[in-house]
């Protein structure tokens, strides 16, 4: 993925977090570029509504270590060894999960948490260590997606940094899950990385400052334009961003 940075605009790898031994970290790599205007002879196509759907909440525990391992095995085998030049709609490339409507119901009543972090280029080992930590704690991830990031934008709380980002969907259930994610936070922090607010639902507020060095700059602006703290959210309350 790293060597192809200049060749492709977008690259994403579906990673199997459940495999161990020599198969550890096996993945399906997809890379893409916007199709040039004169290339396709087809008309502009909008995204098609998904034909598959989940009709009701699955029983809790449907997505567990055993079933996820089985699914990953099938998914990995279903992918072609090499395929180039395939046109895909934006949604098919960026949001493949939406191919199954109401996919979140597979997680049942207990639901799932998402976890995504970014680490700099020199800290690629962190991704490997994170997957190993999850695997050894028996905490399965139904979805693990690895992507390359370029520079952050001017936003004071911009998430990306040049390097890697790993996104995980984790069924709630294993009692080790909260502690394992706290441990991953420490790993990410020591690698100079950070957690993605848009996916976060359990980060400890004490870690935010170290992960987002421009936090004080942001707070200065916020406190100046919103002295009565009207602009708040559950996230800002939980992470103490504001006031």
């Amino acid at each position, binding site marked *: 993925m790293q060597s192809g940075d200049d060749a492709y605009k977008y690259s994403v790898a579906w990673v199997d977090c459940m495999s161990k031994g020599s198969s550890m970290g096996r993945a399906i790599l997809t890379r893409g570029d916007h199709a040039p205007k004169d290339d396709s002879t087809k008309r502009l196509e909008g995204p098609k509504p998904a034909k598959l759907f989940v009709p009701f909440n699955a029983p809790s525990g449907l997505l567990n270590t055993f079933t996820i391992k089985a699914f990953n095995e099938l998914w990995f085998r279903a992918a072609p060894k090499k395929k180039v030049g395939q046109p895909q709609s934006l949604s098919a490339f960026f949001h493949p999960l939406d191919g199954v409507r109401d996919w979140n119901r597979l997680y049942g*009543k*207990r639901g799932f*948490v998402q976890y995504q972090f970014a680490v700099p280029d020199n800290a690629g080992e962190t991704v490997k260590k994170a997957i190993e930590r999850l695997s050894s704690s028996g905490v399965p991830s139904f979805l693990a997606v690895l992507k390359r990031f370029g520079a952050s934008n001017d936003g004071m709380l911009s998430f990306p940094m040049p390097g890697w980002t790993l996104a995980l969907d984790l069924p*709630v259930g294993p*009692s080790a*899950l*909260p502690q394992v994610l706290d441990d991953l936070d420490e790993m990410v922090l020591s690698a100079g990385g950070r957690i993605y607010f848009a996916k976060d*639902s*359990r*980060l*400890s*507020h004490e870690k935010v400052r170290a992960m987002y060095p421009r936090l004080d700059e942001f707070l200065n602006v916020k406190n100046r334009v919103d002295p009565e703290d009207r602009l708040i959210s*559950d*996230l800002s*309350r*939980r992470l103490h961003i504001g006031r």
Partner: protein
Amino acid sequence: MENAFGQPQNVIVLGGSSDIARAITKKLCTARAHTVVLAGRNQQLLDESAKEAQEYGATKTDTLLFQAEEVAKAGEVVSAAFDKVGENVDLVIIAVGLLGNQRELENDPLGSARMADVNYTWPVAALGEIRRRLVAQGSGRILVISSVASVRVYRDAYLYSGAKAGLDRLCQGIAESLKGTGVTLQLLRPGFVRSKMTTGQKEAPFTTGVNEVAENTMRGLASGDLVIWSPPILKYVAVAMRLMPNQIWQKLMKR
């Protein structure tokens, strides 16, 4: 604000020096709780609990004295606790209870009334104010410590068991009434627990220590289930408790 695992940052514990409450508070502070307000009847025990909370991670603690026999003041106590937190309250735990000495109290009108007040009426009154405050916030959780004894009343502890049964069912009604408000209520039903309250008593089957209760509570907060059983197997034991013929039930529970 609580996180996705139901771990709160701000907690009020009514009955904060009870052994079960202390064990739960420690686990909460290890997780995400940084502000803890403890209310109870013994200042020294409350101070010890507060110090313990700080050792486990709380950065702000405060205490409040009250008597659960004073039903008329329940609202004031809750209000004062909320004010001491100073911002949105994420979790209120009701850990008020009195096992009492059944034989001594059963023929005593005042003693019997006291059992009902401490185990039932005070919590019900407090819940009125807790409910009002949390619904106004639009978020928050209530954890009421009920008991496996609430499942079916038995002769040798009917003052306690009966009051807990009443509180338990009433709270189920509160939980229903809270749907759509952003506030939830959960019931913790521990079995026999080795603690100050049960010193000297004969242990029952499925007895646990307070730490196990606390662990089951954390798991229950994450799952969001209305009833949290500790230990979990009691859920199935309860079915048997309800179905067995009365003679067998009373004989089984003879102490």
